[in-house]
């Protein structure tokens, strides 16, 4: 899951493209327009030369703008009605919120033939069955990333929330609200999207107690802490645990017995886009096999792109076993959904947990 990063300041990583390419061809309907599309994505979340290649292939100029967090791009798009942006990379609850606010465009599948590259399961996602307003880009689970040379394999979320004595002060948790609360909800066997008073206050109690035994909260460098041995077990998104595994093969990733969330990072076309054709062409380009292979082999995330996953080098799946999780397994996990009005009580609870001593 891509989230925050106090340290990654969005630079002006503009991919400025030569005008000559615009004149080169007209294979796509959108190519006739010389207008530029603006894409907002996390830093480093797509190939550095993607826009250049896209322009070379389609003749459409594209500019990259960066966001550090979902909340940041959400704030900008809500404030400006989405004007100035054509394509956004956001996590699924935010795609859903954009849709509910009327800020996400309908996706015309006829203009995105590469949609056929996706697994059938990736067309059945709970937040948007049939991919009518969002297209999945990467997906995965949230679980425990641990040093198998320093501890027995954990089996339950309670191994994190109520750590044994030798693990006290050697575990970290994600503090991004939905995943922080998700750990407690899963441990209690509740829905990740339950915002009832009862569930929230039980989760609060559990998480305030868990806070006492943490080394720290960590959403950005947790895998380094496992590598250095500063932490023995961390609450982690699977792809990020892979960065640790890449440095030390004793690091392992496990989804606790109570399960995980299925996180999905998606691509959305803004309703305000004045270059809908070009935006569709971009989405189609990203769904191509090559970009999918790049995502899997460089970010070490699973992608819902079947064609890309099938083309992966077998050694990658061996080194990073969680990359081999089947879509049929993933789809069993509950997705984080837009909480709507429930967000208010949810945010209050998270504030109180973070504020507690």
């Amino acid at each position, binding site marked *: 899951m891509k989230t925050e990063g*106090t340290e990654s300041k969005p630079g002006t990583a503009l991919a400025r493209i030569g005008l000559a390419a615009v004149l080169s061809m007209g294979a796509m309907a959108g190519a006739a327009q010389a207008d530029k599309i603006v894409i907002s994505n996390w830093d480093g979340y797509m190939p550095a030369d993607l826009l250049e290649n896209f322009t070379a292939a389609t003749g459409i100029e594209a500019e990259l703008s960066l966001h550090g967090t979902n*909340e940041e791009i959400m*704030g900008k798009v809500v404030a400006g009605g989405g004007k100035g942006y054509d394509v956004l990379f956001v996590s699924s609850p935010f795609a859903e919120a954009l849709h509910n*606010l009327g800020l996400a465009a309908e996706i015309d599948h006829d203009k995105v033939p590469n949609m056929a590259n996706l697994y059938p399961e990736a067309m059945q996602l709970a937040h948007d069955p049939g991919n009518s307003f969002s297209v999945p880009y990467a997906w995965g689970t949230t679980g425990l990333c641990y040093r198998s040379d320093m501890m027995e394999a954990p089996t339950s979320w309670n191994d994190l929330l109520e750590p044994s004595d030798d693990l006290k002060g050697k575990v*970290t948790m994600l503090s991004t609200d939905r995943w922080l609360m998700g750990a407690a909800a899963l441990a209690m066997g509740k829905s990740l999207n339950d915002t009832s008073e009862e569930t929230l206050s039980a989760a609060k109690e559990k998480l305030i107690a868990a806070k006492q035994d943490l080394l*720290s909260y960590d959403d950005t460098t947790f895998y380094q802490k496992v590598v250095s041995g500063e932490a023995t077990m961390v609450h982690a998104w699977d792809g990020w645990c892979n960065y640790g595994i890449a440095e030390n093969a004793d690091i392992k990733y496990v989804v606790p017995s109570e399960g995980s969330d299925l996180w999905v990072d998606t691509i959305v076309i803004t309703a305000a886009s004045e270059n809908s054709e070009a935006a569709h062409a971009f989405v189609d380009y990203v769904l191509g096999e090559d970009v999918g292979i790049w995502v899997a082999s460089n970010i070490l995330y699973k992608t819902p792109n079947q064609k890309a996953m099938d083309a992966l080098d077998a050694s990658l799946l061996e080194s990073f076993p969680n990359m081999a999780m089947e879509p049929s397994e993933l789809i069993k996990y509950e997705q984080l959904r837009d909480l709507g009005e429930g967000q208010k009580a949810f945010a209050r609870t998270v504030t*109180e947990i*973070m*504020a507690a001593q």
Partner: protein
Amino acid sequence: MRNRLKSVILLGPGLGWLALLMVVPCGLIFTYSVFERGVYGGIDYTFTLENFRRAADPLFLGIFLRSAKIAGLATLIAILIAYPAAFAITRAPRDWQTALLILVILPFWSNYLIRTYAWIVMLNREGLINNGLAGLGVIDEPLPLLYNSFAVVVGLVYNYTPFVVLAIYASLNRINRETIEASEDLGASGWVTFWRVIVPQTVPGIAAGGVFVFVLSIGNFITPDLLGGGRLQMVGNLIYDQFLSARDWPFGATLSMFLIALMMILLFAQAMVARRAAGEGAG
């Protein structure tokens, strides 16, 4: 008349700057604080005083108190470190003083985040200090130096002490040497001269430097986040989270109002100290 026109012209840019970047934003913050939050951020323009009621909750008042404690401690330590340093610099030969002052501000040539990350490298369980002490056989188990209030205070003191050195140096430099000579001529020991003649004359410098550290520390959110490991929230983190993660702008605005009020009181007190000192000097 011409003089008045001149002052208006000279004051104009400064006042315009303050109005645009201080008065207007504060007005916005105040406005936000009396409305309800929107579901997806932004403001739902329904009047309410609920945000103030909520901010007065012991949980949040406790965070203000904790932040004030940490900022106060950082201020105290910074002054204790900075005073002797500034004193030593004023006693150094003239042409050394500039070089020493440059050394004091040298850390600012690197980025705040990098300087803070450097402390993580030093303080963590496997860090320089723990490994060094273990290597010397002083400790068996790593000391818990990071992700607690100790680390936060260290980070704040480290980052803000140079400002205090500069402020105290400036006021030490302004002391009339004759008052020191007079004190010595009248038979006061070096210690008595220091306490009764030198220190009182540098109170404005101590106050200015101290308020500076306190105000910057109490609103800081990067240091508690990185060195406190997010477990120890200060009021700056609380406000940051309301705007950037809880999407509760009005509550964030209300907390900001409290913080701004606290800072105003402190700056007012500091201005009073400076004024009294100036008055005494004239009398």
